[in-house]
């Protein structure tokens, strides 16, 4: 007989919910949704042991539980702290949390190259979203950003170590989804890096999933590299009869052309099912797939600004969409980045955008 699951009450930012025992504060907050859900850069509900590392999800526990109402002295990682009966948590209602989170965002961006203009992840990057929502204008860091020696991970997966935030998600994927991990974290401290010990290709059937879990542009799809900006592509849900995985994917199309295949992601950016390398990298023809219909995309996402054929563009302002909040600009990448020339219409470039295109524009 299935045991009855005990529900307990937890209050987050003054909103009370009933959740099953063993739920983390983060998961409880996600049940409430909206701003109450803390940002999470390393936790991934489908990966055992993930979370606790990035520290963006820190919250204040102002009351431990009914049994022990003392507040917790330190901020806690909501993704790795379970709720207790009667617990009271402050997320956006706590100044301590906002202050610490600002700090964490600044730390995460300290050595980030801010190469969003040439990064394939731009538009669906969690670090971009995080900086817009929780960052400050400008950085106080005046030193050279760190760089790494390049590692080649084979024909499918591109590694840009400078963008990595060391969330360890890709390591957990390799451990738990492929059971054949050949990459991991080398070195320690601020020189920790994702790499294979000996230059080695990542070639397991399911290893492509590291691309979907990577919150930033550190691991991207080589077969999609510089093909297009994500917001110019149109996501549609599709499936195929796949002997290896469930074959349920999202296709990212430009016209009839399939530019990229990814897993289907939920509102927290997590994939619903792991997909195999064949579906991801090799089935790039529209006839390979049975189309189900357009993917639902959150209107917060820049992807929703994409040029859906025959669809009306939203008329609300950015501000209205964000419920009256003005997104805070972390920094104006247009003024910082050399390569970025907003004048270029990427969709007008016939092939992949390369530095030549940008240089030609610069010389004009």
């Amino acid at each position, binding site marked *: 007989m299935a045991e009855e699951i005990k529900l307990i009450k937890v209050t987050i930012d003054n909103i009370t919910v009933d959740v099953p025992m063993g739920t983390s504060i983060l998961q409880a907050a996600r049940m409430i949704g909206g701003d109450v859900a803390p940002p999470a850069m390393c936790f991934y509900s489908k990966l055992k042991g993930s979370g606790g*590392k*990035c520290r963006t999800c820190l919250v204040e526990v102002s009351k431990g539980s009914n049994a022990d109402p003392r507040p917790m002295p330190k901020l806690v990682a909501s993704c790795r702290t379970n709720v207790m009966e009667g617990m009271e948590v402050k997320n956006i209602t706590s100044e301590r949390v906002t202050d610490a989170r600002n700090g*964490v965002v600044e730390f995460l961006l300290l050595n980030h190259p801010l190469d969003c203009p040439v990064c394939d992840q731009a538009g669906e990057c969690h670090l971009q979203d995080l900086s817009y929502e929780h960052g400050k204008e400008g950085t106080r860091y005046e030193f050279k950003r760190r760089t790494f020696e390049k590692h080649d991970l084979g024909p499918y997966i591109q590694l840009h170590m400078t963008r990595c935030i060391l969330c360890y998600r890709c390591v957990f994927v390799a451990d738990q989804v492929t059971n054949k991990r050949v990459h*991991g974290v080398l070195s320690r*401290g*601020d020189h920790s890096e994702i790499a294979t010990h000996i230059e080695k290709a990542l070639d397991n059937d399911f290893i492509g999933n590291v691309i979907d879990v990577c919150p930033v542009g550190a691991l991207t799809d080589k077969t999609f590299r510089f093909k297009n900006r994500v917001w110019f592509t149109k996501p549609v849900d599709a499936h195929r009869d796949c002997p290896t995985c469930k074959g349920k994917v999202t296709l990212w199309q430009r016209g009839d052309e399939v530019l990229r295949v990814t897993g289907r992601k939920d509102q927290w950016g997590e994939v619903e099912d792991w997909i195999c390398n064949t579906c991801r990298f090799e089935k790039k023809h529209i006839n390979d797939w049975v189309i189900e219909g357009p993917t639902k995309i959150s209107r917060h996402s820049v992807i929703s600004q994409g040029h859906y054929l025959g669809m009306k563009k939203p008329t609300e302002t950015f501000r209205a969409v964000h419920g009256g909040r003005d997104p805070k600009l972390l920094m104006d990448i247009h003024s910082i980045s050399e390569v970025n020339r907003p004048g270029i219409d990427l969709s007008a470039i016939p092939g992949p955008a390369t530095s030549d295109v940008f240089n030609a524009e610069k010389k004009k």
Partner: protein
Amino acid sequence: MGRKLLLDKAHIEGIRHFDVYRKNGGYSAVEKALKEMTPDAVTEEVKKSGLRGRGGAGFPAGMKWSFLAKPEGVPRYLVCNADESEPGTFKDRYLMEFLPHLLIEGLIVSSYALGSHRTYIYIRGEYAWIVDILEQAIEEARANNFLGNNILGTGFNCEIFVQRGAGAYICGEETALLESLEGKRGNPRIKPPFPAVKGLYDCPTVVNNVETLAAVVPIINFGGEEYAKIGVGKSTGTKLISACGNINKPGVYEIDMTISVEEFIYSDEYCGGIANGKKLKACIPGGSSVPILPANLLLKTAKGETRIMNYESLSDGGFATGSMMGSGGFIVLDEDQCVVRHTLTLARFYRHESCGQCSPCREGTGWMEKILHNLEYGKGKMSDIDLLWDIQRKIEGNTICPLGDAAAWPVAAAIRHFRDEFEWHVNNPVESQQRNYGLAHYADALEITV
């Protein structure tokens, strides 16, 4: 003259060997515990003794032992933390090098109390020669039936294994140590679960410092209550202090925790005063992680009381005007030392030793080092001092393990007590490259507002 409980036999010729150690009363605690006491009774004695962990945090050892989960059919482990990598701390080395059997004896008794049949010593890799000393001691103990199966005919089985670390300070943090012991990358675990519930190979585990486990021997020999009579308040028993820096007699001293800091520094029995006739400027009383104190606050508390070498007195005044007992690494700075340079050295250490798991520590430690480097080399700005303060504030308390705090505290304390020295560096970029700020007013009795 303080009483010695740990190092009393250290001077005996050949004490490293089993026969000599045994002849001088060694292993009597094993006989007493295994033959006359139940495991719980041993734990009870340790509780009564008030012994606090000597690894840094000072958590009561008996209480830690009683938290150990004891589910049926699951092995339990005792792990001895001999990673000792905190700058300024070298007491465990001394103990293991000269009295290996004292540690082995403590481990057998503690393993018996906790029900650990496989006990590990995780020792820092650089102590390679001590590994040989310990392994020889283990062999000798086994040859004499103090280890192995059916110890002294009591039916208790226990093996001790020595595992070398590979040169990482972070592997001294107990959960990183366990990861490393399991053969993994030494990243601290996210707690809870605590080792007492899920430790080595997911089994209930107690991790204790070398000195803590060695102190179990006199506790069993004399009884917990007797042990608790030495010292004062919650600082019971004796404590090993490794003293270094600008003093006449650097070394490892066993103190009972009633002597004053002043006596410890200036008396001939201990440090023998500041070297070369110089004046005391500052001191880090408990290993590199604890706050530095200027001379005036070191010798007397903010309330004007004499500061004593014990847990309570050293932390009197909190971080505003106090420090911590920490791991007993006592680092003395004389008037010729530059606090900015010294803080840079520590910041470099923590940047180098961060495991890199969590963002505040991974990024913040490197940032602090770079700013301190600028300040030290005459390229700093006045705003850098506030920036440093803000960075350390954003690291402290927001990380997975206490290394983040350990990196933040020294920077915070240096700015708190020596801000004028930092400002002098900014205002005198050329002069600060040629001479040190000196003693300034740090030795004077300052008016302290708390």
